[in-house]
């Protein structure tokens, strides 16, 4: 089952490599990984999406917690949560395609952020399924380039991951 694990990590050189190394060393799967500093500059927030049996997920969270630089972590998928991913996609846009793409972008509540005579660059945010859905709707033949940020997530309601 797919899980989103959110980690507060000491913002130290080498800390990220320990997290990434742990996944490859123990044969765990990383689907997406995002990391950036938080409002507290001593901390980074890292979100990793992974999949595995309950036993594997339990080991992943325990092994992550064992890393000295991991301060706290939460498996967001255990409760209600919001997940978002940002995608920038470059599309071939000529002739009648241009209007069709614009309509599809509107339906998906995306924005065209750059335009040339033959190319649209579209920005789209949402959960991973929505981004997949957009690519499917456009059709892969028109897609020139895709860049996705990987998933960021946060729990719904009062629950916070902080010190």
């Amino acid at each position, binding site marked *: 089952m797919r899980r989103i694990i959110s980690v507060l990590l000491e913002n130290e*050189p*080498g800390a990220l490599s320990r997290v990434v*190394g742990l996944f490859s060393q123990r044969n765990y799967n990383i689907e997406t990984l995002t990391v950036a500093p938080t409002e507290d500059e001593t901390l980074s927030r890292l979100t990793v999406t992974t999949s595995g049996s309950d036993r594997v997920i*339990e080991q992943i969270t325990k092994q992550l*917690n064992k890393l*000295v630089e991991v301060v706290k972590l939460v498996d967001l998928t255990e409760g209600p949560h919001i997940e978002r991913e940002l995608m920038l996609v470059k599309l071939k846009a000529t002739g009648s395609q241009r209007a069709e793409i614009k309509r599809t972008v509107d339906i998906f509540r995306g924005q065209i952020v750059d335009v040339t005579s033959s190319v649209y660059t579209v920005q789209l945010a949402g959960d991973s399924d929505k981004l997949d859905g957009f690519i499917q709707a456009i059709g892969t033949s028109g897609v020139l380039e895709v860049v996705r940020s990987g998933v960021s997530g946060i729990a719904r309601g009062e629950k916070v991951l902080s010190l």
Partner: protein
Amino acid sequence: MELLSGADMLIRSLQDEGIEYIYGYPGGAALHIYDALFRQDKVKHILVRHEQAAVHMADGYARASGQPGTVLVTSGPGATNTITGIATAFMDSIPMVVLCGQVASTLIGEDAFQETDMIGVSRPVVKHNLSVRHPSEIPEIIRKAYYIASTGRPGPVVVDIPKDMTAPNERFEYAYPKKVKLRSYNPAIRGHAGQIKKAVDMMLAARRPIIYAGGGVILGKASGQLTELVRKLGFPVTNTLMGIGCYPASDKQHLGWLGMHGTYEANMAMHHSDLILAVGARFDDRVTNATEKFCPGARIIHIDIDPASISKTIDADVPIVGPVDAVLKEMLALVKESKEKPDAEALSSWWKQIDEWRAFHGMRYETSPDVIKPQEVVEMLCRLTNGDAFVTSDVGQHQMFAAQYYKFDKPNRWINSGGLGTMGFGLPAAMGVKLNYPDDEVLCITGEGSIQMNIQELSTCNQYNLPVKIINLNNQSLGMVRQWQDMNYESRHSHSYMESLPDFIKLAEAYGHVGVRIDRKEDLEPKLKEVLAMKDKLVFVDIQVDRFEHVYPMQVARGCMKDMWLSKTERV
């Protein structure tokens, strides 16, 4: 406040940490540190002949004393040569600090001479590693390193020290921190009271209980509490290879050690138990055999300081995260005050069953009128040293024979590489023990394959006068490899025999030691007595043992705990 250079701060920090010996090898990036070492006399340095041996020496000391060992090496090859030693310590959770020189910070990343990314290279085999980025950080980093290495589940910590951090001309205020606090590292200091209560209720209700104790009991200095609890409950106890000595082997409640080469009675009792109390053990694959067939009728209580060890391979019914000594103490208090008592009738029929298994004598081996059996060598050594020596071993058949036939009544006396299985561990580990326990007998039981992996340390032994006794069970082959080839590859002995072995007697003599060869059975006892009487000499005893012996019992691959070969022909 005192002003010191980075190198002087480093050595002062070791002094303030109470470090007596460090083991190492100098080189360019560590020379400022070596100069600081030279200018003081509190911290003594032992010069090895290969950095791997420095780590095993520190490791041997740590296993014998329960205190962290310390290593100092240079950058590049000096650092990478420590990796096998660090991985050995990591797999067995041994506290250790490894100080590595590094090229100057201005050169890092430029493929400088003797540059290796030691932080990256060591990452998968350390508990943690730290890099010095400013000389003034050194005291705090050293305190952190020892703190992390020796608390919680212990392990090796590497400190990477670029050469410019130890430059003699820059001085900084020195103060050694008494304490360090890490917001992200807080090992458990006690177990969950509710879980402990639940566990004790289960223990008192059990009909066929068994206590399965691991190396964590020794690392957690909890042998006393374990022994008291076992005696109070009257339960049978077995331990892992790493747990040898955590409960006295000569005690009647002890079933020997369990697993792949464990005793018949320990493996049978595990398989048929209805409750397993696992204490500081991690259900390693050399213990469980096929996990899906593991102890089908048993519920499991698992005490461990490391939550990741719990339910990793075998699901625990009652997990208890905490230091074993504190948890066992609480358990004992609960058992004492509980109105419930263990079911005497059930226990007595359980013991009757266990005694039947014992009477089966699963550990018997055939003796021969003229060929020396490795098992009898170990039995004789145990008798001649009153079972009270420190015994280190390498890896292979001799290791199993040593563990099976030397009966340890005390913890910290059996010293071997259980997790990583590092050939070449035995001699340097023995040296580390002997240096720190000069009045104790230290035996290194080894084989002609393993001993050659760190044989150069005979030179170090000469320099520092380390009179260990090397017992080379020489079967002229890589015995355990050959055993597997006999059992699984129709005796195709692919690269498992050793042609052109050196003359170990001359070799020992060349290094300034005494060599004794034993190849006749009638010489075994008198010569071993002579060897043990040479208190101040390192003696290399080369014993020609049965070349075709196998280690038994041996669990049948992919079977359950109770499926064992008891000899080449007998399977249960």
